[in-house]
């Protein structure tokens, strides 16, 4: 036993240092920088190109583009007012793998991932997020 007790200094150092275990469910856990949480959608920025929907590896995004009639009445001699679009993103959290691909491919930065990670739910319906 040439090296008996080599660990002892380390053990006594550990005695003095703070424990690494956190009181997670009782204290809010901090997430590391660049953490990929839930995709959040900003409808106002979206142009409805559906790149995210096409690129999503787990087919978790569905973009619905609904064309609404323009609010203003058409005026003579002016170009016709653009029809409004109502864009909705349906996110299936049970399929989402939090890869951040949607946020990367979005040309208008309409999708960004937040830091929310406590996403467990009791029903599948609760995991279907409709974001407008």
């Amino acid at each position, binding site marked *: 036993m040439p090296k008996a007790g080599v660990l002892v200094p380390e053990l006594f150092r550990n*005695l003095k240092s703070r424990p690494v275990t956190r009181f997670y469910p009782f204290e809010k856990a901090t997430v590391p920088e660049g953490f990929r949480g839930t995709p959040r959608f900003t409808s106002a920025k979206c142009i409805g190109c559906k790149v995210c929907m096409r690129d999503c590896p787990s087919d978790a995004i569905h973009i619905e583009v609904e064309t609404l009639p323009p609010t203003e009445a058409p005026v003579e001699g002016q170009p016709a007012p653009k029809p409004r679009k109502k864009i909705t993103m349906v996110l299936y959290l049970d399929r989402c793998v939090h890869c951040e691909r949607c946020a990367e491919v979005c040309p208008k930065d309409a999708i960004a991932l937040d830091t929310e990670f406590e996403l467990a739910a009791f029903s599948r319906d609760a995991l279907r997020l409709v974001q407008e």
Partner: protein
Amino acid sequence: MNSLKVALYILVFPGFLFQSGFSTFLEWVDRKVYARMQNRRGPMYTGWAGMLQPIADIVKLLSKEDIVPAAADRRAFAFMPILSLAAVFTAGLYLPVWHLRSFNSFEGDLIVVLYLLTIPSFSLFLAGWFSVSPYSLLGATRVLTQLFAYEVPFFLAILTPAVLAGSWQISKIAIFPWTVAGHWWVIPIEAIAFVVAILTLQAKLERVPFDIPEAETEVVGGPLTEYSGKKLAIFRLQKDILMYVGAALVACVFLGGFGALPQGGDQASIGVLGLIFGGYLGGVTGLLLGVTNLVVKTALVVFLLSTLRAACARIRIDQIVRFSWRYLAPWSVVQFLIVLLFKAKGAV
């Protein structure tokens, strides 16, 4: 009246209730220290800083289903936990805990305690034997092999202070360093025996690095593989009390005890150091000092055991036999010779 007193001694202090409670406290100390050394927190939620967790574990086990293997000897299987618990618990009754003048202490109780402390190992062996399962049998044979490795060094180490004190009575050995003023230096000259006693106590408790009989990666749970429910809970409690009795015995014979005078012992002959670091006083001050000494000294021994557990990995069965006979036994003999030398020179 007298029998009532004895019943109280046996059931409450220093008997069953005290031993169960204090041993779970020591298990908490052990788990906490072990966890902190590994940068964990240890038990946290049951009681203050998880202090009641060992009790909660035992209560939970008591409520669990109790399964006896079909091939096992039912009666012997059920008897072994009780036998081992009774043995360690009886051994604990002979320890001089504060202010009792060790109600059943007599010349030679050290031998009785050492004998009683061997029974748990044997009952563990028999428990594995009667379980009739390959893992249990393997564990059981390892228990016996290990017993033959550590028992002799353990006895030699514990008997060294007895020879120094010239008595086989634990309480007399405990007060020996304090009886003559400036006599405390007999504690450091027993250092080798103390180290051997700690190492062999760890082997007796079957904890890392000497947890060969119940090496869970090799033989599942060793002799306790087939045990469950209440019987396993009793074995758990027995292990805790064994740790308390072992730690308190080591603290008594090596560290000056904790405030229990032997029968007919004279408080006047004890120096100031003994009153403080032994707690040999009457009244409330004595109670406080005695209890503090008990807690601090046993916790110190348990701390050393936990450090050993955290610092080492499990060794093989042949390694422990070789280590015991090649190092521990000769060290104890050398210590014995040192003590004899001191005795021969008339220094003690």
